């Protein structure tokens, strides 16, 4: 069985009293450990919808779609390890936005799907992700991809991972955190 991989990670600015982070957390932690393709589709749709509602807060991002099987397996492991090793998470709180200092705080939200190659979902996502190089980092591109996620059928998703940094509003990422080389794959979103 061959695989394709899709992944998107968005870095959004946290606003004081913003409920977006809490809602994203809620949909992930409340999703049952045993689930159906339908519920999983609903989770993906809701995550995309919430992220789109925070479009004005998009700061940095990254997205991938690869059809090569080896790369798909390898990259999916890499995205999962970002969660399992808690690599990007802070080791201690930084304070809520505006609480300790005037420096901004950020969150990241990551979705990665390991898809069955040659499935309708994989083909649809491939089409959504067919983006001219000049537009790769434009906000409109991220919006297009998020909107396109509703075409994914979980019948063809072998594994999926969703994660949010931070889990607690006191643990937001700082600009200095995002300067760390481990975040260098996140590029500024333009437009």
């Amino acid at each position, binding site marked *: *069985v061959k695989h394709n991989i899709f992944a998107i990670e968005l870095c959004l600015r946290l606003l004081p009293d913003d409920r977006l982070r809490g809602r994203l*957390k809620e949909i*992930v*932690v409340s*999703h*049952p*450990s*045993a*689930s*159906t*393709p339908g*519920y*999983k589709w609903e989770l993906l749709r809701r995550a995309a919808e919430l992220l789109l509602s925070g479009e004005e807060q998009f700061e940095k991002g990254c997205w991938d779609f690869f059809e090569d099987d080896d790369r798909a*397996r390898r990259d999916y*492991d890499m995205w*999962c390890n970002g*969660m*399992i*090793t*808690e690599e*990007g*998470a*802070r*080791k*201690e*709180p930084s*304070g809520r936005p505006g609480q*300790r200092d005037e420096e901004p705080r950020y969150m990241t939200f*990551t979705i990665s799907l390991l898809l*069955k190659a040659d499935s309708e979902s994989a083909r649809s996502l491939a089409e959504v992700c067919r983006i001219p190089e000049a537009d790769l980092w434009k906000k409109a591109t991220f919006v297009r991809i998020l909107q396109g996620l509703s075409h994914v059928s*979980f019948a*063809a*998703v*072998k*594994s*999926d*991972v*969703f*994660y*949010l*940094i*931070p*889990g*607690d509003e*006191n*643990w937001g990422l700082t600009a200095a955190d995002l300067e760390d080389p481990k975040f260098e794959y996140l590029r500024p979103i333009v437009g």
Partner: protein
Amino acid sequence: MTSEDPRPPGYDFQQDVALDKPGIVGARWWHQGLLDEERKMSRRQMLVGLGVAGGAVAAVAAAGVGLAALFRPEKVRLERRRSLVMQQSYGWDFGARGVQLVFNGQAEGPFVRAELQRLPAVMAPVPGRNAPYYVATLVGSLLAQPTAALPDPEDGRPRPDGAPFRRLADVILPIVTPEMREAYRAGEALARLARGRADVAVVADMPGPQAVAFAAGAAEVLEPVLLLDNWPHPHGVVPSHLTLAALAYYQPRFASQKARGAAPPLFVLDRLRTAPYTEASDRFDNRYYARLPSLPSLAAGGVRTVLYVVASAAALPEPDDLNLVLAASTDDPPVSVSALAVTDFRSEKEEEPQGAVFFGGSPRREATFWPSRAPGALTADDFAPAPAGGRPPETKDHAFVPRRGAATVAPPDFGTVPVVVTASGLILSAALDRSGSMNRFAGGWSG
């Protein structure tokens, strides 16, 4: 899906990792239906590749080769996975289902097991400045159930960890030991010294049961903040089931002291969290690095004095995972860090070893506790005649100095366990006992 498949119809996605921590939340699911399909496909391909059909199957079986062994669908390999993630997925006793925990110092007296359900709530700090630092991992293990099961081996042998699962809340027994009682009395004495001081934070870094007992003794004045970040295991390098057992013993004490409300923090650490471990053994590596807040973070919450408490002076210096945190320079505002040992607290009368203890062994010496920790301050003891050979070094003289090689992030393999994995990522078993687990799957494993 087989007839023994526990999945309800349609519930094809099974979570194998879930995190809910202040720094990160997330989860991963696997589509069991696609995994099943993939395994079946691999078997068909193998049969085609072998040219096995009809009489050939019978011939192979007659020759004494288990057919299932030929059906083993994929090559497998050894990988290291996060021990905690494996336990959260497959149960706290991953790879050792049915092996009994061993408890030393089992407490006598009434014990209401059902009360353990409340332990996580009892140990959670009250909302306030200490709450973000709390690490609920260990107490979270009590009620946890596996979210996934290991697959049936292709050779028809029993499934790994196929015995009935029992929650930790159903097997933990409360313990109390002489060392715990000693630590409890020292905690009471420290609470007496810390009363009225809002600028203090205490770090109790001792073998888990003693650290818990120390925190229980001090609970009237200092709020316990657990930094216990692993799950127990029957073969665990860190015997954290004993720490849970100590928490069970002192649960009534902790519950009764919650009415105190917000208070300076007493961080509870298990000193065995970084215990030496030989990978060649069959031990389960449930070690971890402590997530102690940095001095600037504590300073932002009003802390100006950190007391680092160990079981005895022999437990100094501090381990690598704390060194850079405690040795960090802090000038704005300054935070002083000094060491202290449970053995610094002694009874005034040797004939009453179970009585109240004082720092230095007497109220007079105890009165010098804070003055002696003020930078540059002299106390009455400094003018007393020195014993022959000079004054022996005290725990408070320990200097926290950054060490080369110390780090706040654990090495990559720290707290990981070897598992047998198929090429498609399906975990077949733990590989704690390589002569056992690996042999079962050795027919196809590769590099």
